[in-house]
């Protein structure tokens, strides 16, 4: 019991290293990436555009859609699941929203319908996984193409284009990199994202529900043994995640001002990548919201940095790939080092 003699002091230190491990790991990678690009940009002749507020606004705005969907994906991944349908659900939500606007419903109704679609899609995913007891990868691989098909069905396989007058001004401003009130620094959509992130983070850490999410991800049979209602928890996780995908659909619509049935295809990969770069483990039980946000930002910073440095897309792709692997490797090494 030598090590247990200072029970009051230790938990704090413990929590410190815990934070360091789960969140700061990718954060260090972010700072590094930003630093490297800022230096390289300033060295080039007509540079100096990278480390600017304007560019920072861009980076936040561009990563917001992926990041907000990744909040829900973090919960899913912590619970030991995955959601490949996140991309097409996002597009489906945007289409539903656009459809309601085009048909002349008020924006509040349209937004509710869009978010509701996300929740419903998530609910269906969760229910299928729980009832059929098929692995999440398969269920969501199936619903991925189903939701894509539904989106095309609603949109008659084309764009749903509400008239400009049908789109409220706040929606235009939601993710416009040009902020109306200068003191806001970032557009409302970015602040909303941060508010949602804080909420989810707190929920995961400080609520019974959050503990149960970690429990079923870490060991499902233990969770069952402890009387945790696994199907209920899982359905709730997917439904909440669906809500965030709905918000991502709103974000996407706010930027595109059209509903495009194919706009979500392939978007699940950056969403999942954000979670995993941020320290989430696909075998469940590990992941953090701070890490996920950092992960989403890292990818966008690379993209924006490559534009600054006038690098072609294929160089950017190679760099993104290398950094995904490197970030996770470094995180891994740090964890091994820190492990008691």
């Amino acid at each position: 019991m030598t090590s247990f003699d200072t029970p009051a002091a230790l938990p704090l230190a413990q929590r410190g290293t815990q934070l360091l491990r789960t969140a700061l790991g990718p954060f260090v990678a972010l700072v590094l990436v930003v630093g490297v690009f800022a230096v390289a940009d300033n060295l080039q002749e007509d540079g100096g555009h990278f480390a600017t507020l304007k560019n920072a606004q861009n980076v936040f705005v561009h990563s917001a859609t992926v990041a907000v969907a990744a909040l829900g994906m973090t919960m899913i991944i912590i619970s030991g699941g995955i959601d490949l349908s996140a991309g097409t659900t996002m597009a489906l939500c945007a289409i539903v929203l656009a459809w309601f606007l085009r048909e002349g419903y008020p924006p509040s109704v349209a937004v509710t319908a869009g978010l509701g679609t996300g929740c419903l899609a998530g609910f269906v995913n969760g229910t299928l996984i729980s009832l059929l007891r098929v692995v999440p990868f398969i269920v969501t691989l199936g619903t991925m193409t189903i939701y894509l098909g539904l989106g095309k069905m609603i949109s008659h396989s084309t764009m749903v284009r509400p008239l400009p007058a049908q789109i409220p001004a706040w929606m235009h401003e939601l993710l416009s990199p040009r902020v109306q009130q200068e003191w806001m620094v970032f557009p409302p959509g970015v602040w909303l994202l941060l508010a949602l992130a804080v909420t989810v983070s707190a929920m995961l850490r400080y609520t019974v529900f959050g503990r149960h999410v970690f429990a079923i991800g870490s060991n499902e049979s233990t969770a069952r043994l402890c009387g945790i209602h696994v199907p209920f928890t899982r359905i709730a996780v997917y439904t909440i995640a669906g809500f965030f995908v709905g918000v991502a659909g709103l974000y996407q619509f706010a930027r595109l001002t059209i509903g495009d049935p194919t706009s979500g295809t392939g978007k699940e990969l950056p969403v999942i990548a954000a979670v995993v770069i941020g320290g989430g483990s696909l075998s469940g039980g590990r992941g953090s919201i701070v890490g996920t946000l950092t992960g989403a930002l890292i990818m966008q910073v690379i993209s924006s940095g490559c534009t600054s440095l006038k690098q072609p897309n294929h160089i950017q792709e190679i760099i993104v790939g290398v950094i995904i692997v490197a970030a996770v490797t470094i995180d891994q090494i740090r964890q091994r080092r820190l492990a008691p």
Partner: protein
Amino acid sequence: DRAGESASSLRTDAHSGNKTLRIAVIPKGTTHVFWKSVHAGALKAAQELGRVEIQWKGALLENDREGQINVVQDFVAQAVDGIVLAPLDSTALVPAVVQAREAGIPTVIFDSGLADESVTVSYVATDNYNGGAIAAREIGNRLDGKGNVILLRYNVGSESTEQRERGFLETMRKEFPGIKMLSDDQYSGTTPLEAQNKALELCNQFGDKLDGFFSVCEPNTMGVLGALEQEGLAGKVKFVGFDPGPQLVQALADKKIHGLVLQDPVAMGYESVKTLVAHLRGEKVQKRIPTGEIMATPENMNDPQIKKLLDPEQAN
């Protein structure tokens, strides 16, 4: 409106010195030869004009509208002097172009139109509707006004190909009532392989009564050609495609393809950059600059003008 203009004239003053103009050119995609030729045209204009630097960048994913908006916004943050853009969507890109203009960066649109032309300097493009129409006439004439034809569409929401499809279908209906459309609602998807699989399935279904085929763009045409060759229908079916490529030109020579609607991508890139720089230097420019479209057939493919369009220059 006026605020934007004064901003851009301010910049013009600033840049009429000896500073290099940075022009961002944003294509719809990066892998098709068509865009390579646009790039070549843009570079040619830059070279001729002098002190102009071209920054070529497309969205990471093909057909990713959000990605293209990101690219435009990134270039606004980079404070380039002007943007040349082939919008992936006629309305979705409007806000981004407006944001550029508010930041004092003018935009020239090429290849596909924008719903709100008032926010752009100029629109440089093929008349795609007419492209579809001349394709319809080529097939209609070759079939003497009767027979069964398939139209394989490209991808949902692509404005330029939708124009072609509309031009084709409306002209067929109006000018060749004896021709029946076997299928006009299938989309090929964006890659040649998807197009080929789709076309094979269509051939399998309609092969015995098929007389004519129209495919609306290059990857689509590639796929259909492959399918027709595999089905042994190449040469028998009157096949008109859009845009050239080495295999397609070869097939044209072999009379496996009976017509290719040609655009002039080099001119598109060239004119777009020229127009934008002229605007930046305070000159008055035309709001609409057509670059022409023309039908290449096995018969006329050796005309020098057509020969040039069949194998346009490419940047690498």
